[in-house]
């Protein structure tokens, strides 16, 4: 298998776009292309069967979830699949019984209706059997729920996501030196008439959140004005920003590099639909990548993130 193939089994090398660069498009399962503004780029498949290409933003006509980038989202998808199994079981069973009953008790086939008052055995069975099914559903459901609720004691980075009408402010305070202020920046959605070639409509922002991959992150979410909600579907995270003296916390551990998109998920006013939460997940914030994506290595944000990268790197990446 070629080591540097750009198109391997349908997966493409996805470039992190800095300003002015195009973003490559993956050919997703089912043939859907990523977004209206992106250039069509045919991927040459080395094998004939279609495979999964990571789908980290909303797709036109999308039916299922976005591809999981975190263990949490993978757990959510797996739970959905488990429950769907029981759904199909019950649907097929009930449909069959219904069709058979309609068939056999049709007035032409069975002109004299029966006068069945009760049947104790069948009533017991049809009570017990359906009550066992929720037990099978509850086991994986509670397991996932409690694992999602686990508080990460020692995250590598804590990021504050502050919701405003109608933009976000992100704050990195962990790795300041004593005389420095926190790295803080605002993140506005790129207007509909202003995207560059390759950017997704109403999903891109001017300043993305940059975080390392394969490491526990803590996100603290709070608003500055009205309720908001910070949601990134690929990461399986949605955290409400509640006004007042309240900080909500969520933790994620993204398993692969990429650009992940999210949208505000709590009505917050007239531009609620235009507030975004996309982020870059980088390879432990390598200096070269930083210099490309954060406007130069000498840019203050780059320096602080490099310091963070050094601290994170010395702790070692946790898988």
């Amino acid at each position, binding site marked *: 298998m070629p080591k540097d193939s750009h198109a391997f089994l349908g997966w493409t090398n996805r470039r992190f776009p800095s300003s002015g660069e195009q973003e490559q498009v993956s050919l997703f399962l089912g043939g859907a292309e990523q977004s209206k503004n992106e250039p069509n780029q045919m991927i040459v498949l080395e094998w004939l069967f279609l495979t999964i290409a990571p789908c980290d933003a909303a797709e036109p006509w999308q039916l299922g979830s976005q591809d999981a980038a975190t263990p949490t989202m*993978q757990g959510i998808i797996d739970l959905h699949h488990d429950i769907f199994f029981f759904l199909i079981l019950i649907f097929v069973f009930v449909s069959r019984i219904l069709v058979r009953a309609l068939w056999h008790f049709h007035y032409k086939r069975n002109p004299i209706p029966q006068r069945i008052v009760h049947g104790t055995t069948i009533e017991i069975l049809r009570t017990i059997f359906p009550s066992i099914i929720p037990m099978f559903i509850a086991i994986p459901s509670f397991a996932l729920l409690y694992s999602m609720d686990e508080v990460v004691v020692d995250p590598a980075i804590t990021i504050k996501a502050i919701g405003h009408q109608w933009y976000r402010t992100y704050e990195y305070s962990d790795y300041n030196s004593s005389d420095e202020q926190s790295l803080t920046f605002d993140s506005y959605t790129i207007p509909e008439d202003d995207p560059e070639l390759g950017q997704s409509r109403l999903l891109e922002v001017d300043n993305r959140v940059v975080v390392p991959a394969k490491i526990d992150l803590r996100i603290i979410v709070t608003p500055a004005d009205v309720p908001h909600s910070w949601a990134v579907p690929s990461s399986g995270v949605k955290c409400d920003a509640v006004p007042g003296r309240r900080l909500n916390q969520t933790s994620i551990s993204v398993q692969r590099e990429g650009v992940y998109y999210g949208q505000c998920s709590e009505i917050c006013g007239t531009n609620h639909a235009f507030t975004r939460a996309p982020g870059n997940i980088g*390879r432990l914030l390598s200096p070269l990548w930083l210099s490309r994506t954060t406007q130069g290595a000498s840019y203050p944000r780059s320096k602080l993130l490099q310091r963070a990268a050094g601290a994170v790197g010395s702790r070692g990446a946790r898988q």
Partner: protein
Amino acid sequence: MIVAQKMGHAAVQGLNVLKEIVYGLTLGLMGGGLWKMHPWNNQRRTREFYDLLDKGIISVVVEDE
């Protein structure tokens, strides 16, 4: 036969409640099994993807030209 009769009166000749329930459950399990092939396939491909990613055979980052 007795169980079937206990479960419900055979209102129509040749109709066996127990048999209908068993057929329904079998079809339901077959349908569910057919569905499960999809998540199993997805899990296999996801595992493959991350294995290849960890080994460095594929990458999700475009190298500088």
